[in-house]
């Protein structure tokens, strides 16, 4: 055979010309196998090409690996021996407890390779049912806070535990022998075992005196209950059973008491999709709180007038026959007889009709209604509230079974005054601050600063630096709660356990162990101490068939332990405790409140919490003086003007914020800010207004007679949402005009369940829509249940490694939150109606961001997710511009860098990152991924177990965090999914539906339980 070109024969060799069969055979296989010879360097000639290459490759490999000292790099190496429970790549959960301010929350700590990365609620917690407040979510950052105290310090110099302990023991013995007081300052103790340690300490050193303080406390409530019932249990409220709730200056949904429990129960009464019924929330308040924001009917009232309001209400209730006057004591009747709702309405300008309908509602819903007074109100108000509840038969709604246990009484101001006198006369042997911060938390007027500053025997046990640490001689670092053991009992009938989930990062100690070692116990082990306590006090009475070890490990695993219930029941009020409270409005009333995010200042060094927007004002990184629009106008003050509050000579300066809906002549300021010596993040964020607190009554938060003056200075507040003037006709009610917020009243809805759909047009598309054959992920958010509490944001931040950007960047509109709660006002600035709406990436089917990305960095997954490929993103920001929901976030800087008031770039803080989520670099866009890591995990599990995915199996971080269960997530293609039910519900709508971009987050329209004319 030969090649033929035209008619010519072409040949390359004689053999070919002669048609040698071997050549013919070879020609059939152009690329013959076995062309490569066996590789054998030995047999190669000295300078063969292949040998040369082999030697070159070997030497390169040798040089590049053998000559580098990889041993010293601290790189990741696999376990030589795998620890029990830990499987690389798999999260392990441990049950534990978070406790703060006499409350405790059962938690599950998610750890990866021994590193805690996320805190979830423990679903076995009988009270909180797997939900936790935002503070707990974000508290994981405190574990990795580089500002933590890392070793014992004596007079500003590093020292060893042995040395300080020796010195302190001498000091304590001396104090004890000279009968000088050993003062221990602590916050309320929720742990029985801790309490036991303190008690033993007191036995060992009899001159010990324990001071229990709490910056924002509910002592007024406790006092009123104690006066009435002489019990050690305060009932919790069955909000879920209440038909009518009247909140008096109470933010039970926002920042008062166990908000998580309150939200869970309250939102049960807001389940319109399933029950078609709603509870009715009245709020009468001077501040604009989260509760007021959610109220069906809201009155604004100067807080000092609450008592008079209650008296007038009692009068009205008697008048309309809701309560029987014969059940009320003579003296009470006589004080209220002159006070009518009519008079009260004329005096305060409140809407009389609405007030009357409140009374009527209370009458109609007898024994299903509850009046609830706020912590800040006086004990007289609380007493009258309790009386009214009794007369209305509301004790049905008191839950003693799961009531709050009163562990220990708070110290009164008299006792602290005595301490001050004693210390001035040299009668104090040692001052121990036991994980507390008395200098910051107690009113400045006591002069604790001087006492601590002058004393040579101040000992401070603390996890982080603070004002008290700064002035203490001995500074003893304690464990973070994730490194420590503990038990907590705050509720009747159960106890939650706390276990360490990581070995201590620094040279710190369990705080109880420190006390134990001073009591002369060598190398105390609190773990064993705790076990013994449990064994003797609980296991012994538990009738458990298991041995103690099994019992202990089961308890640790569950995190919750049932203990004997204190059986208490309702006893009738002793009406002789009734005391009239003089309510006089004078000049300006100041109302000091707890804040929503950083607790009593304890979490001020947590960037995530500082940057969490205030649920009402959306201000971050600051506190402020909130004023009503009319008061602001009267004082000639506008946003960001610094005002001076002068309350009987006590002065503070802070910026003003105009808050629609507030009572006139009232100023509301949140406590917990203005920290000093508390770490890079916390220092000088906001303003310390603790100076306004009274040294006469530690539970007084309302002061009238203050003077407010404009200073002329300007201080810029950073909020995540611009404040538009409510009266501006130009932009008024846009959220309603644009159908972003769709609402109705219960009446409207009952008359016509389809009322929302009436004005809807059929939207058609000229292109064919994409088909989703398997799963199609979607979310639904029930705006009836959503309270706008912002806990979803906190959880999302932790889950998705969302960076903290700092105040400066927030004020430039560059916050990075993947989910935000939009807040809209309608109505008048005086009586606004507030709507909130969580907005996150809507994962549109026809996502407008996708087609404009020049590099395909954002695209659509087959299961309906709008995904981001961070590595591909070049950062043109076109997607963000084209997103109508503006949920895309741009990394304007490397936000993990060292910016003064934001996050740190250090080895420690990196440990908080979720390894399943990419840490985004500078210059890329990021956004909500519907927690794709959780979807992938669920899918992995389904594949391993050879089953199909359960449509409700995947949970997003915002969903698990939502205390009111407003968020559902799942497969919209599956009829079984919850989300599908919401998508098809008559109240379901999509935001900006008319753009035909087919978003996948369904909102259930909010139905208000108010009369149509009110809305």
């Amino acid at each position: 055979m030969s090649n033929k070109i035209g008619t010519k024969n072409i040949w390359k060799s004689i053999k070919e010309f002669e048609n040698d069969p071997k050549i013919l055979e070879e020609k059939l296989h152009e690329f013959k196998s076995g062309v490569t010879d066996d590789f054998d360097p030995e047999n190669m000639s000295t300078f063969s090409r292949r040998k040369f290459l082999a030697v070159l490759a070997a030497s390169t490999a040798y040089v590049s690996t053998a000559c580098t000292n990889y041993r010293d790099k601290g790189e990741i190496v696999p376990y030589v021996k795998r620890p029990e429970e830990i499987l690389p790549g798999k999260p392990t959960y441990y049950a534990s407890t978070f406790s703060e301010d006499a409350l405790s929350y059962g938690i599950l700590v998610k750890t990866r390779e021994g590193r805690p990365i996320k805190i979830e609620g423990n679903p076995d917690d009988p009270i909180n049912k797997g939900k936790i407040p935002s503070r707990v979510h974000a508290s994981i950052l405190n574990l990795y806070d580089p500002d933590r105290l890392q070793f014992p310090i004596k007079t500003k110099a590093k020292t060893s535990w042995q040395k300080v302990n020796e010195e302190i023991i001498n000091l304590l013995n001396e104090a004890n022998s000279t009968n000088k007081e050993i003062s221990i300052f602590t916050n309320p103790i929720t742990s029985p075992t801790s309490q036991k340690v303190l008690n033993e300490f007191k036995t060992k050193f009899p001159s010990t005196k324990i001071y229990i303080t709490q910056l924002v406390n509910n002592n007024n409530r406790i006092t009123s209950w104690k006066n009435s019932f002489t019990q050690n249990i305060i009932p919790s409220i069955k909000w879920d059973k209440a038909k009518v709730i009247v909140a008096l200056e109470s933010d039970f949904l926002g920042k008062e008491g166990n908000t998580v429990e309150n939200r869970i129960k309250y939102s049960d009464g807001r389940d319109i999709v399933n029950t078609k019924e709603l509870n009715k929330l009245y709020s009468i308040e001077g501040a604009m709180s989260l509760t007021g924001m959610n109220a069906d009917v809201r009155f604004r009232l100067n807080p000092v007038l609450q008592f008079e309001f209650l008296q007038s209400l009692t009068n009205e209730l008697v008048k309309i026959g809701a309560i029987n006057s014969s059940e009320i004591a003579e003296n009470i009747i006589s004080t209220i007889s002159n006070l009518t709702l009519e008079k009260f309405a004329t005096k305060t300008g409140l809407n009389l009709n609405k007030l009357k309908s409140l009374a009527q509602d209370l009458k109609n819903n007898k024994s299903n209604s509850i009046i609830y007074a706020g912590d800040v109100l006086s004990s007289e108000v609380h007493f009258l509230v309790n009386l009214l509840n009794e007369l209305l038969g509301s004790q049905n709604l008191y839950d003693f079974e799961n009531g709050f246990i009163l562990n220990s009484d708070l110290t009164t101001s008299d006792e602290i005054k005595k301490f001050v006198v004693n210390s001035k006369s040299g009668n104090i042997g040692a001052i121990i601050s036991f994980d507390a911060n008395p200098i910051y938390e107690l009113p400045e007027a006591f002069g604790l600063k001087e006492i601590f500053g002058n004393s040579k025997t101040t000992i401070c046990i603390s996890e982080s630096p603070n004002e008290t640490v700064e002035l203490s001689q001995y500074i003893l670092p304690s464990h973070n709660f994730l490194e420590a053991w503990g038990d907590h009992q705050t509720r009747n009938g159960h106890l939650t356990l706390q276990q360490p989930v990581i070995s201590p990062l620094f040279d710190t100690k369990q705080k109880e162990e420190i006390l134990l070692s001073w009591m002369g116990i060598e190398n105390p082990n609190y773990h064993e101490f705790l076990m013994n306590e449990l064994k003797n006090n609980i296991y012994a009475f538990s009738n458990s068939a298991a041995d103690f070890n099994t019992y202990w490990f089961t308890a640790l695993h569950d995190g919750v332990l049932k203990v004997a219930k204190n059986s208490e029941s309702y006893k009738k009020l002793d009406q002789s405790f009734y005391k009239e409270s003089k309510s006089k409005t004078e000049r300006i009333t100041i109302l000091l409140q707890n804040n929503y995010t950083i607790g009593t200042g304890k979490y001020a060094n947590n960037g995530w919490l500082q940057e969490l927007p205030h649920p009402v004002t959306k201000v971050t990184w600051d506190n402020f003086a909130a004023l009503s629009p009319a008061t602001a106008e009267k004082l000639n003050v506008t946003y960001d003007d610094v005002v001076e509050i002068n309350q009987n000579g006590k002065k503070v300066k802070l910026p003003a914020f105009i808050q629609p809906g507030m009572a006139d002549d009232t100023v509301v300021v949140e406590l917990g800010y203005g920290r000093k010596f508390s770490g890079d993040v916390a220092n000088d964020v906001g303003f310390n207004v603790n100076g306004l607190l009274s040294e006469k009554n530690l539970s007084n938060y309302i002061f009238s007679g203050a003077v407010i003056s404009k200073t002329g200075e300007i201080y810029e507040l950073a909020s995540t949402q611009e404040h538009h003037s409510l009266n501006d006709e130009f932009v008024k009610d846009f959220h309603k005009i644009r159908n972003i917020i769709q609402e109705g009243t219960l009446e409207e809805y009952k008359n016509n369940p389809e009322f929302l759909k009436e004005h809807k047009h059929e939207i058609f598309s000229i292109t064919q829509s994409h088909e989703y054959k398997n799963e199609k992920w979607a979310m639904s958010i029930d705006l009836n249940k959503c309270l706008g509490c912002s806990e979803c944001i906190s959880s999302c931040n932790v889950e998705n490694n969302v960076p903290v950007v700092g105040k400066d960047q927030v004020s430039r509109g560059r916050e990075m939150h993947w989910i935000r709660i939009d807040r809209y006002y309608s109505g008048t600035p005086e009586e606004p109606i507030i709507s909130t709406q969580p907005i996150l990436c809507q994962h549109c089917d026809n996502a407008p961001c996708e087609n404009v990305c020049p590099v395909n960095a954002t695209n659509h997954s087959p299961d309906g997710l709008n995904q981001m490929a961070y590595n591909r993103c070049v950062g043109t920001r076109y997607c963000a511009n084209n997103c109508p929901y503006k949920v895309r976030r741009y990394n304007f800087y490397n936000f993990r860098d060292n910016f003064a008031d934001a996050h740190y770039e250090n080895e420690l803080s990196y440990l908080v990152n979720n390894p399943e989520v990419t840490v985004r670099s500078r210059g890329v866009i990021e956004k909500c991924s519907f927690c794709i890591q959780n979807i992938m995990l669920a899918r992995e599990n389904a594949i391993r177990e050879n089953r199909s995915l359960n449509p409700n199996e995947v949970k997003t971080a915002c969903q698990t965090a939502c205390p009111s269960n407003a968020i559902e997530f799942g497969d919209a293609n599956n009829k079984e999914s919850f989300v599908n039910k919401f998508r098809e519900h008559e109240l379901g709508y999509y935001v900006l539906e008319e753009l035909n971009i087919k978003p996948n987050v369904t909102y259930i329209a909010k139905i208000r339980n108010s009369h149509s004319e009110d809305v």
Partner: protein
Amino acid sequence: MSSIDFTRELSVVEGKPPLRVIDEIISKPLDSKPDKKFYIALSITLTMLGIGVVGLGLTFFYGIGLWGNNNPVGWGFDIVNFVFWIGIGHAGTLISAILFLFRQKWRTGIARFAEGMTIFAVMTAAIFPLFHTGRPWVAAVYLLPYPNQHSLWVNFTSPLLWDVFAVSTYFAVSFVFWYIGLIPDFATLRDRTTNGIKKIIYSLTSLGWRHSNRHWQNYELTYLILAGFATPLVLSVHTIVSFDFAVSILPGWHTTIFPPYFVAGAVFSGFAMVQNVLIFIRKIFNYEHIITLDTLERMNKIILLTGMMVGYAYSMEFFIAWYSGVQPEFFAFMNRAFGDYYWAYWIMFSCNVFIPQLFWFKKIRRSIPFMFVIAVLVNVGMWFERFVITVTSLSKDYLPSSWAYYKPTITDASLLIGSFGLFFTLVLLFTKSLPVVSISEVKAVVDGSQPSHGDH
């Protein structure tokens, strides 16, 4: 009765200068050493450029955070400057290509310069799309459709990608067009120069041009074909730049009128810029008889015309926004005129629509100081037009919750200054290194150089 002969064309070059004089005048700046004034001018523009380089360097090092851009307003000065400079570049090709095809002889005096400015403007503009990205070091690669083993391609549906193609094509064609036009002039310079180095450079760049008849024939044909090529580009580049906005769904951007409106605006600003610079050039280099007042007046007429087209577009946008009945759309326009950025809108409207109306008066049309000021204002107005479109639409879009005010920073300002610095540095260098008026073409339009049809 004073009679005007309307059948006679006005002379494009005044005074019938001999051809040798034309050679000399035009190449004089190239023969002489730069004077003090040139260095003063150059030091000013280089300082401006330096400011821009510092701003860009800092941005490169720290990130876009140095700019005023925020969450709703993803694009600020960066894109405003980009569109502005691309717009400036429009006069060049229009003058050299479209006016060439329409046999507008008055273009000869200004074509070369306008083309040069096109190229410099596009170069200036091209900085912004690259450096406005968060990661320019990857953007430079990822934005190109190169084959790779991931079989990962650019997104052909994205207007930003169309931009990449449109601008690079425009630049390439403009450059070639410009260079072809320069070849006969290079040859003339080569023949004139006595400097050895210049001789080598001009010999290389003139590509062996010998002024032969055959060369001229090929040249004319090539020029005509390139003019044909360039003509659609004049329309397409700014059309595609307008797609950056029009393809989006943002109220105020999503508008079908954008392509013609942008092209008109680009020609408008381009002519204003060319007119501004030429006023200096003709004065400094004594080209008053080559770049005549008649030519400037004609340019002013085009400015008047395009200004009215732009004004029509502004009004029509408003009308359609109202007529559509789409609330966010109408609000976007109301917000432009009466919202936070109302000042920008009214600067734009006055500079672009009201002030050019003065060109109806012949006296003003022919008054150098007046026309200069008006053209400067036109460019101020056109810069603000892009600002208004980009920033106001973004700052208040669909959800009132995400609205925010955009405030530029010092870095933003430095980039704007730097862009002017770069542009004028290039213009200055151009005047001393290449003939700013086409020698060969001017020769062809001098009175008497053409076959005469009258006056036998």
